[in-house]
């Protein structure tokens, strides 16, 4: 049962609740870094790592420190500082110990501090409710959700990089070139994700 719910949380985060295409979080990197496949993948992997790490840190802080002491109004400021600190830390650690990984992922890290998808995931995961127990997500659920959100970001980025690769070769009217045609393409990609509504519920019936 637990595995079933975790899989459904994971799939829902990727498909139906896709943060980029359904909730409009992380649009800047989605439009900016999706030009080439390798940079799209690099950015997404960095985002996924930071999302999971940030959730791992902010969830206990919120549940066991802020809520019991009635300080949940400090959520925004605390979370953004945790994310900013975490990004710096990951950067330093990568540079020092895994320079090869740093060279491929490092350049995306400074961009992530102001990526609203990361802050959005850490905040939204606290509001979510497990549909079988009607309680707040447990720590495990929250981590799986954050990981799913990151993979969902990856899926959207890779798909979109593919679409943009095709656009490169297409003969686009002069005034549509650049951002306008990119946004129209994004519109069509997000349209395709609308079709996933209800998919997860049918794939993994919980009751």
């Amino acid at each position, binding site marked *: 049962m637990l595995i079933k719910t975790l899989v459904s949380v994971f799939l829902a985060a990727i498909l139906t609740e896709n943060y980029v295409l359904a909730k409009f979080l992380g649009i800047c990197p989605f439009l900016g870094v999706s030009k080439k496949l390798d940079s799209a993948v690099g950015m997404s992997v960095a985002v996924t790592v930071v999302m999971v790490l940030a959730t791992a840190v902010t969830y206990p802080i919120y549940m066991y420190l802020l809520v019991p002491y009635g300080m949940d109004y400090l959520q925004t400021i605390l979370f953004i500082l945790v994310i900013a600190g975490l990004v710096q830390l990951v950067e330093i650690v990568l540079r020092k110990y895994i320079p090869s990984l740093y060279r491929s992922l490092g*350049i995306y890290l400074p961009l992530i501090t102001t990526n609203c998808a990361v802050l959005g995931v850490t905040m939204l995961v606290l509001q979510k409710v497990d549909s079988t127990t009607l309680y707040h997500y447990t720590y495990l659920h929250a981590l799986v959700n954050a990981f799913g959100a990151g993979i969902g970001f990856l899926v959207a980025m890779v798909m979109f990089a593919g679409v943009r690769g095709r656009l490169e070769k297409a003969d686009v009217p002069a005034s549509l070139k650049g951002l306008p045609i990119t946004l129209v393409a994004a519109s069509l990609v997000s349209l395709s994700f609308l079709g996933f509504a209800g998919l997860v519920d049918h794939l993994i019936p919980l009751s």
Partner: protein
Amino acid sequence: MEKKSYLHEFSKGIVKENPVLCLILGTCPTLAVTTSAVNAIGMGIAATAVLVCSNAVISALRRFIPDKVRIPAFITIIAGFVTVVQMVVRAFSPALNDALGIYLPLIVVNCIILGRAEMYASKHPVLPSILDGLGMGVGFTAALLLMGIIRELLGSGSVFGIELLPVKILIFILPPGGFFVFGMLILIANRLNARAGKRVKSSPCDGCLMSEKCSQRSCEEVSGNVD
């Protein structure tokens, strides 16, 4: 400073350097909350309030904040004002708080605010910084309102809740419609800019605060390749 230049600080953000349509900043709220004109105005006013206050404080403290920790300091100040605005909205307009949801605290990561702090307020005196914030905020609100009116009119057949059209093209208030309307607006803005003989910004990275840091590869490749 002359009066004229004060006016310029204010007005540049509304048309010439409109943060949304010309600098392509703050795209997430632009797409997310513009399903109705009322939400668009609410978001615009909340962001403007944060922008003006944070610009004023950052400009006043610009000589005291050490350069090394300037970004975390800016983020702290902005997050503080965002939380204040959030509490005020929850206290005096709970309906707006429900409608904006997660996007209200997410004003923290709106690139417009950190971008103005870094590019303008940390280098200019208080009064021009306030005017700059006000102008950018009004420009942001105007762009959001335009999006909100178009999407609400086409998607729900109404504007500000007043029924105007008998047909409803639902897709316009769904996410795909958001991307599409935004694309069309930028198309128009680009054409107007091109007619005025200005360089057209075609990447969100151009106005991005971090573009300097990441220009080594990812952003350069984007802005370099786009015509």
